Every structure is written in C-alpha cells, then in structure tokens.
C-alpha cells in the first residue's frame, strides 16, 4: 500500500525570500554596463573568442531584435514594463569554469550549496552544470558517460570544442527571427547547455543544469542545444532561481532539441524565478521518425512567464508530449502553453496543461495544434484544467487548432474549476482543516504532473506548493 507522507500545499513559495531570494555581494570579473548595443555584442563575442560566423549571427540578431515589434498578444501591459535599457546583458563572475566544487569561488559555491546542487549531484544526477549570471561556473559529467561519447558541457565550450555540430544545428530549430526574444537571445547569448548523445546510448540518470541570477537588473540569456542521435535517450532537468529585488530582471532563453530517428528526449523544467523576473523563453524540438520528445514544464515563479514549448513531429510515428503546470500567485501572470506541429503521417501528441491561480494571480493557456496537409492518421489530445483559488483569481484559455487532414483524431477538453465548496466540505467532515483540505485538493490536481518528476523534485515541488498555499483564503 503506498502511503505517502508528503505534506501538501499550504502556501507555495512563502519562504522564497529566505530559501532562494538571498543574494551575494557583487564581486565580478566583468559587469557590462546596462543596455545592449553592437559594441556590447562585439565585446561578448571577443571575450569568448568566437569564430567570425557566430559573431556575424549575433550582430544580425541584434538588428532583428531592434526591428521586431513587441508581441501584441499576451499580456502586453506587463510586457510593456520591460525596460531594455535598464538591464545588464552580460556579467562574468570571477574564477574559471571548473569540475571541482572546491575550486568554485567561495561565495558562489556557498550559494549553490545552499540551493542543494552539489548534494543533488552526489545523490541522483549523471551530470551537472551550474550557471551563475552569464557563465557556467561548474560542470561535471559521469566518467562512464563521457567514455561512451556523451557530450555535456556549457554552450560556449560546445562552440569551442565542437564547432561543426554547433554550426550545423544552432538556430536550425528556432531561427533568429522567430520572435523578438529569440533574436535578443541570439544576439546576447551566453552559457546554457550543449548535449550530444551518440547513437544508441541511453543516459539512464538525468543530467541537470541550474541557472542562478544574482545581480539586480540582470539579463540572463542562456542557449541550449540538445541532440539525441538515433536510438539514444536522455533526460535533462533544469532549475532556476533568483534573488528578490524590487526592480526587474530578464531571463530569455532559447532551447533547441533534436531527436533523431528513434531517439527519446525528456526535458524537465522547474522554473522558480523570483517574482521580479520576466521569463520569456522559446523552446522547440524536432522529432524525427519514431522519436519521442516530452517537455515536462513546471512554472511556479517569475513575474510574467511567456513560454510555449513546441514540438515539430517531422518523421513518421514521432510522438510529442507537453505536460505542464503553472502556479500564478499574487502579482504573477503565467502565460504558458504548448505547440504541436504534426508534419508527418501517423504522428501522435498529447498536451496536458494544468494551472492554478490564487489571489490576483493569472494563468493563461495558449496552445496550438497543427496538422499539415499530407499528415494522415495523426492523433492528438489536448487537456487543459484550471483551478481557481479565491474570487480574484483568473484563468483564460486560447486554444488554436489548424487541421488540414480529415483522418485525424482530435480530442480537446478544457475545464475550469474552483476549489469546490463541496470538496472542501467533504474533507472538512473528515477532520481536515480548510488549509489542509485546500492543499490536498491542489496537490491532487497537480498529481498527474508531479508523478512524472524524479522523486526528489516531486518532494520539492510539493513543498513549494505547500508554502505558496499557506493561509490562502478560498
């Protein structure tokens, strides 16, 4: 009998300030002045000793970023608050990248200790990178995986050591001009992960990257590229936190995944930025024949998140899944969703999106399923559940379906529910106080998501939710 002693959710993130919201004194090798320009882009590229082609891509991207208008959909009011001139686009911490925690500068090491990263690495990870501001300060991979030819390093090292792979795939899934923020990332990118898994190699234990912002008004623009060669598999997990400041920071990543024939990639995110961070991320995958790509996407933190993990099912029988939860508490807007493009016959996909809005929090599901002409025999299902806690909480869904074939099975379900009075009463009649009862209902609501996480993350997520729910009035 499986009895689980996990406590539920009394108050998500109520202890954020203490657990993640702290910051280190600033002690940097280089802190670029605020604002972005061709000079800055040139400086970043030179410091990194990049080949000319990458430098060219950056400069072009900056022009595209400047030319592109802000998105007019989504939360334009909140987006309008971003002051691009008030952001530090590049900060390099002191010290060189190392694979020995003892060599990480004391202050930074303390921070990652406090966030539990070295401990997690010892316990259940096959490899770790830890990014602090713009640069990865620590990186390691299990020796046996390295021997099998698995590459796991920060993106800058990837470019240096494997320029041919990077040149081939960088921007191949998400072109620079995809959107304003992908252009900005391409101009200013630094850090992120580069992963290549050779044919047939199955990485049985997750690889993890942790992203930490420390400075106020920081912009973090990591760039991640994961290539799983034929028949291989890999699970990558990312986590992120930042100090709580009164003025805004910006996190704008670009993540590209390529799952070759028969490969499998699972990409898990637990996003827990502080509530002064704009989190505007572009994530997309190519799934070739018989490949499986899964985005498992948890959004708890940030001020505004706009993120719609996408999968292009390019080869026959490829399968894509997006499983996401979003929690929008006071002052937060989680605008998240998924995009599924069925570009080949007999491809299948599933989107499960769960959101919880509390207080004046707002969550939106924005989703798109497209079945291209000629993509016969596809199956897709979309399930959106929103849970509202309190009278002011808000949830919206913006689903789009664009189906060009007739022999396609499409299921779509959307539900909005309040933490029901009858559910609460039932649990109260069994002795649970209203907070505990509400927590139990919310934990039950996100259970389908939580059970997809490795145990350690499941426990952590439940703990966060519990804190976030503390003292909420239903």
């Amino acid at each position, binding site marked *: *009998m*499986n*009895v*689980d*002693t996990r406590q539920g959710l009394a108050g998500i993130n109520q202890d954020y300030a203490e657990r993640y919201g702290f910051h280190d004194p600033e002690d940097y090798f280089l802190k670029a002045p605020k604002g972005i320009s061709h000079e800055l882009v040139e400086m970043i590229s030179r410091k990194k000793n990049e080949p000319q082609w990458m430098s060219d891509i950056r400069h072009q991207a900056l022009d595209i970023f400047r030319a592109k208008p802000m998105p007019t959909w989504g939360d334009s009011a909140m987006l309008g608050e971003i002051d691009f001139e008030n952001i530090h686009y590049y900060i390099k911490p002191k010290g060189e990248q190392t694979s020995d925690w003892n060599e990480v500068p004391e202050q930074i090491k303390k921070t990652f200790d406090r966030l539990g990263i070295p401990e997690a690495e010892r316990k259940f990870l096959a490899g770790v990178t830890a990014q602090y501001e713009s640069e990865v300060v620590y990186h390691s991979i299990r020796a046996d995986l390295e021997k099998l030819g698995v590459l796991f390093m920060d993106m800058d090292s990837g470019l240096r050591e494997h320029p041919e792979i990077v040149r081939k795939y960088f921007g191949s899934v998400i072109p620079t001009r995809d959107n304003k923020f992908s252009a900005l990332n391409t101009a200013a990118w630094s850090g992120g992960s580069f992963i290549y898994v050779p044919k047939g190699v199955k990485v049985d234990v997750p690889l993890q990257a942790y992203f930490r912002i420390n400075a106020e008004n920081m912009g973090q623009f990591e760039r991640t590229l994961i290539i799983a060669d034929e028949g291989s598999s890999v699970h990558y997990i990312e986590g992120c936190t930042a100090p709580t400041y009164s003025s805004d920071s910006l996190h704008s990543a670009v993540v590209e995944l390529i799952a070759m024939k028969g490969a499998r990639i699972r990409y898990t995110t637990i996003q827990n930025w502080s509530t002064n961070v704009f989190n505007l991320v572009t994530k997309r995958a190519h799934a070739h024949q018989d490949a499986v790509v899964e985005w498992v996407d948890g959004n708890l933190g940030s001020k505004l998140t706009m993120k719609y993990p996408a999968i292009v099912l390019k080869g026959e029988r490829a399968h894509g899944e997006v499983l996401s939860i979003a929690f929008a508490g006071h002052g937060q807007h989680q605008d998240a969703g998924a995009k599924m493009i069925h570009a080949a016959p007999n491809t299948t996909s599933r989107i499960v999106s769960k959101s919880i809005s509390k207080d004046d929090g707002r969550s939106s599901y924005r989703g798109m399923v497209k079945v291209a002409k000629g993509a016969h025999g596809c199956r897709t299902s979309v399930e959106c559940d929103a849970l509202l806690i309190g009278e002011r909480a808000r949830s919206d869904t913006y689903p789009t379906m664009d189906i060009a074939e007739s022999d396609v099975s499409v299921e779509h379900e959307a539900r909005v529910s309040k933490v*029901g*009075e*009858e*559910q609460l*009463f*039932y*649990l*109260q*009649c*069994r*002795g*649970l*106080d*209203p907070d*505990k*009862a509400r927590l*139990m*209902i919310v*934990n*039950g*609501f*996100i*259970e*389908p998501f939580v059970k997809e996480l490795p145990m350690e993350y499941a426990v952590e997520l439940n703990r966060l939710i519990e804190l976030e729910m503390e003292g909420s009035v239903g």
Partner: protein
Amino acid sequence: MSSNGDAVFSCHGLRVFVGDKEIVKGVDLEVRAGEKHALMGPNGSGKSTLASALMGHPGYRVEGEILLGGERVDHLPPHERARRGMFLGFQYPVAVPGVSVANFLRAAVSARRGADVPVREFRQQMQAAFAELQVPKDFVSRYLNDGFSGGEKKRLEILQMLMLTPVFALLDETDSGLDIDALKVVAEGVNKAAGPATGVLMVTHYQRILNYMKPDRVHVFMDGRIVRAGGPELAHELEARGYDWIAREVGLEPAAAAAEGSRS
C-alpha cells in the same frame, strides 16, 4: 427500546435556512450511546439538509442547539465537529481527483486522533477495514471517489466510519444504490462501527437495511419536521402504506409532505 447510555447527540429547536427559505423547521432529537435511529421521509423533505447542517455546512444558516457528547458544537466548523467524533456518511460522496484513498484516510485518521498515526499501524488498520468491507486492495491507490461506482462510494463511506470511530454517525442513505450482497456487507460494517459507545442516525427510504440494523427508534420526517416517532414497527408500516396517511394525520397536505421543488 434500549436507552442504555448517555446522550451522545442531541439537537434542540434546530432550524435551517437557505437564504429566506426555511428547510428544516424545528427539530428536536436525541440519540444515546449504543442506539441506532432511523430517519425516514419523502424526497425533498429536508433530510440531507438536516444532516449537512448538523455537520456545519457553510451554505446554511442554522438556529438552535447541537450537542455532541453533552457539549455544544453548533459554533464549531465542520472539521472540529469531525475531530470530536461526529461523522457524516454522504448521500453523494464527493470525488477528489489525484488524492489517493490511502493518503486521504491517513490524513483523516490522524486528524481524528490529533496526532499522526504511524505508517505501520495505519496500514494494519486500513487493511483490516478493507477486509471487513470487502473492498479490493487496489482501491488504496485509486483517487478518492473518482470514477467509483455508486455502491463503491457507499462502501468507502462506511469504511471511513469504521476507521474514524465516531461518537455519533449520521448516515445519509448509505443503503441506496447497493445490491443485496453489498447491503449486507455495509449493514454489518455499520453494526461493527456502531459499538456501545456510539450513536447512529440512519437516513433511509427502505425497510431492507433496517432488517439488518435493527433500529431502536424510527422517526418520520416531513416538511422539515419530525412528525412522528416510534419503534421498528413504524418502518414496516411506512413500507406498507407510504407517507400520505401520516401527512393527513398530522394535518399536512400530502403534496406538502415534501417541500416545494423537491428533487427525486
């Protein structure tokens, strides 16, 4: 009629309102330790409303006194009443998706105790209750009342009653929707849970469950009131003759035996 113990439950002058509408119109009732009472009445007469209000449902305005074990509980929220040993078996148990039966039961048992029940002890207790009510083992990991059949839900209500050792149990049509075998199992469960220290009030439409439960007293409930009380023979009479004759005797229009707009 055995009136062996002290009153474990009583209410006095109980009136229940939804907005301006009075649904329960003055009920006095007392149940002693070891007693089983039946409450019978037409659809829509207010039985479930009475039960919910006794438990403290926030949707009602309630006047009058409610005592559990001699102490007033009418000012307490539902979970406090539950912790003190009041139990409501729901006519329509509520589903809570994603919450496993085991986790839920453990939280409930711990709440009733006022302390976390150790895992091993809890497991044994749960296994015993599952066996008693012949609930398949795999129900522990199923989600609470989610996709359960009507009969399965009722069984699980009695299983909870068994594990929560109530002082006073209100069972709202726990016998409805059960097949004959299940009815027996549930009745035995109720009899087991209703020890000498416990009082039971069973809301029912049917004589059949009473054959197994052997009520000490039967109350007839119409139009928000208890209009008649008697021994077990009263239930037989109701089964044979229906409610209209009582309605006439107590001066209610037969149609008014049920409150207007009753659901079936």
